[in-house]
């Protein structure tokens, strides 16, 4: 407990100390089992000590005992809000190591699903953020209504609501239903109309503006040094998106913009995420128009997938930033080393630097704006 030299006016002899507050692991604002020990001087936070690891399940150790196709399930569980994006990363990594080329159709479907997943993840962010900033559930319900449409759609395709386990090295587990195009178009319409509601309710709200603008400004240099990625990095004004910087899969075929902010503050992070949803809709529309028919699984895939000796650090642009997987393969059917680089892990590590010196209420908002997924942080 730090003793400050701060004294109360008129009471020069009265010694005051900062108090420590435990926020979490059971606290409504920590989005899961995350704990931070705040040292507060009144309402002002003078120190933040993030404590993680409550969700640690050995998601890097377990895959070392699983065959490559079984590992896909662990990626669903790593970032449980962006399952398709994480699966995409792992599947691409295995394909790059083995030299499999996935079929055209499956690539398009992957991109469509990954982009829709980005939208659901951001909707989840807006829902959770709205409760952090104090709206009593309404924006949350609006965001979840739209998320539900997409979630239902995913369930129709994969048979699962949360842990899809749908992508496979070489293609997909099975083909999408026949009404894929119509449902997709319908869902895009629903998302577009839902985004308008959300914008009026949350993003363009005067109190949100007052609270978030200028809060926790991060410069480009700091953001890079702290290892931030995704919307947090783009909010600082740096135009960096892995889909454009190092196009993987078939992202180089689509037209889309990279939204960036100006100040790197919390409000810019909101705006960047909001615009990203619109850009994702654009990508989905283009992909739907170009999607060919054909097989969904590459030819010559064996029952046991042996990956030749080699190593790769594959990264994709997840909703939270750079999601990477580092695989060391030794020619067997199991990865020798399987490291996951979660975007929220690096983003969260900057929490202290971003939030010290702010008010208690603002630290909650800053934490919310990082958009952490604890499963990805702890793995």
């Amino acid at each position, binding site marked *: 407990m730090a003793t400050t030299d701060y004294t109360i006016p008129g009471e020069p002899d009265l010694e005051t100390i900062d108090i420590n507050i435990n926020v979490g692991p059971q606290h409504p604002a920590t989005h899961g089992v995350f704990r931070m020990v705040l040292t507060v001087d009144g309402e002002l936070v003078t120190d933040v000590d993030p404590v993680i690891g409550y969700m640690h399940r050995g998601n890097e150790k377990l895959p070392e005992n699983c065959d490559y196709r079984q590992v896909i399930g662990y990626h669903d569980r790593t970032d449980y809000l962006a399952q398709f994006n994480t699966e995409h990363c792992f599947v691409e990594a295995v394909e790059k190591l083995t030299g499999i080329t996935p079929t055209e159709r499956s690539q398009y479907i992957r991109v469509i699903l990954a982009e829709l997943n980005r939208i659901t993840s951001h909707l989840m962010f807006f829902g959770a953020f709205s409760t952090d900033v104090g709206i009593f559930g309404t924006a949350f319900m609006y965001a979840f209504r739209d998320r539900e449409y997409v979630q239902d759609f995913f369930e129709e395709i994969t048979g699962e609501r949360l842990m899809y386990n749908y992508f496979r090295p070489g293609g997909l587990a099975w083909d999408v239903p026949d009404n894929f195009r119509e449902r997709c178009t319908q869902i895009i319409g629903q998302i577009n109309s839902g985004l308008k509601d959300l914008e009026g309710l949350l993003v363009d709200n005067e109190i949100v503006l007052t609270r978030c603008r200028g809060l926790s400004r991060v410069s480009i240099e700091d953001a890079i040094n702290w290892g931030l990625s995704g919307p947090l990095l783009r909010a600082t004004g740096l135009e960096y998106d892995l889909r454009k910087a190092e196009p993987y899969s078939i992202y180089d075929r689509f037209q889309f913009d990279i939204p960036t902010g100006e100040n790197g503050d919390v409000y810019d992070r909101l705006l960047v995420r909001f615009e990203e949803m619109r850009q994702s809709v654009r990508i989905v529309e283009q992909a739907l128009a170009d999607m060919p028919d054909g097989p969904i699984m590459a030819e010559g895939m064996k029952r046991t997938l042996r990956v030749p*000796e080699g*190593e790769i650090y594959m990264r994709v642009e997840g909703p939270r930033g750079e999601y990477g997987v580092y695989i*060391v393969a*030794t020619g067997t059917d199991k990865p020798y080393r399987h490291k996951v680089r979660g975007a929220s892990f690096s983003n969260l590590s*900057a929490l202290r630097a971003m939030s010290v010196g702010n008010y208690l209420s603002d630290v909650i908002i800053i934490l919310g704006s990082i958009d952490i997924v604890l499963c990805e942080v702890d793995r």
Partner: protein
Amino acid sequence: MTSNGSAGQQAVQEAPPEPGPLARLLQELLPGVGFAITETPLDETVTISRDDFSRVMETLKGHERLRFDYLRCLSGVDYLTELETVYHFYSFEHGHKLAVKVRCPYEDPHVPTVSHLWTTANWHERETHEMYGIVFDGHPDLRPLLTEEGLGYYPLRKSHPLADIEEWQEGYLKAIDEAKRQAAASSGEAPPPMSKVEIAQAKGKLMKEARDKARADGLSPEDEKAAVRAAIEKFNEDLKSGQAGAGAAAPPPMSKVELAQAKAKVITKARNEARAKGMSTEDEKKFVAEALKKFSAEQAAGGAPAAAAPKKELSKVELAQAKAKVITKARNEARAKGMSTEDEKKFVAEALKKFSAEQAS
């Protein structure tokens, strides 16, 4: 990448891969530093030695032609004899990417920190430290990040074999369950009822036996069905009367009277012993109580001779370490003998099996 496990396959030495533009640049900027090139699909990868590490890292971050300002990922890898740390870099200024690997021996897992150059390395290094035991010299705060403090082992090292531990754990839990059941049986209480799973398993076994028997006897399908049904009914009746639960293997439990007599004997013996030793009254009491406790424990362990708790009572960690030792030893032996890779694997597996058998006895 060369892993020791597949050294045999690497016997045919390929020509070293061509250095890429970045590696050539590094060689130009850092004369005297050895860069071993590895080919990987996305990044240029170089391996450097630990002595050059700090110099290389500072150049990577600071030199204007390199300017790697973004540390993407930091991972540890366990190569059984060596630990490796892999750094993935990106440069926003030049748009180039590089992976740098550095190895340190198992016995001396020290690597200089880079957290003063890239702040993001702080948490990555903490994680790698707790998972692999690599000490990052100069790191400001190497507390464990994800696991609890004082864990005592490094979970991601290969010497912490997951599958074996699980297997061992399962056996251990089963032994505890068995011991409990025996204890309950020997203390004269009714045996704990079978769990549903056990009942189902027992039933399945019974049905299979009945069916096999019926087929061996050449019965018609109808008769076969009837036979199976009869067997199940008998089983259910047994279950109701509580005979099936007791199990044939359990020794006949001591009656209460016998137990009391045995206890009295123990007490008398302990008291006499204590008096012979000239203990004070309090000490005598304690001595007797201990003897009694020991007796009860023995009773509880009862007829489960080997299964009741492992004799050596190795902790999980110790066991894992012991296993790792066995593995290393076997491997070294195999190599010394010049075995092929497959034979080596077999040899190690056998050694492990032997070790487990020893543990079980």
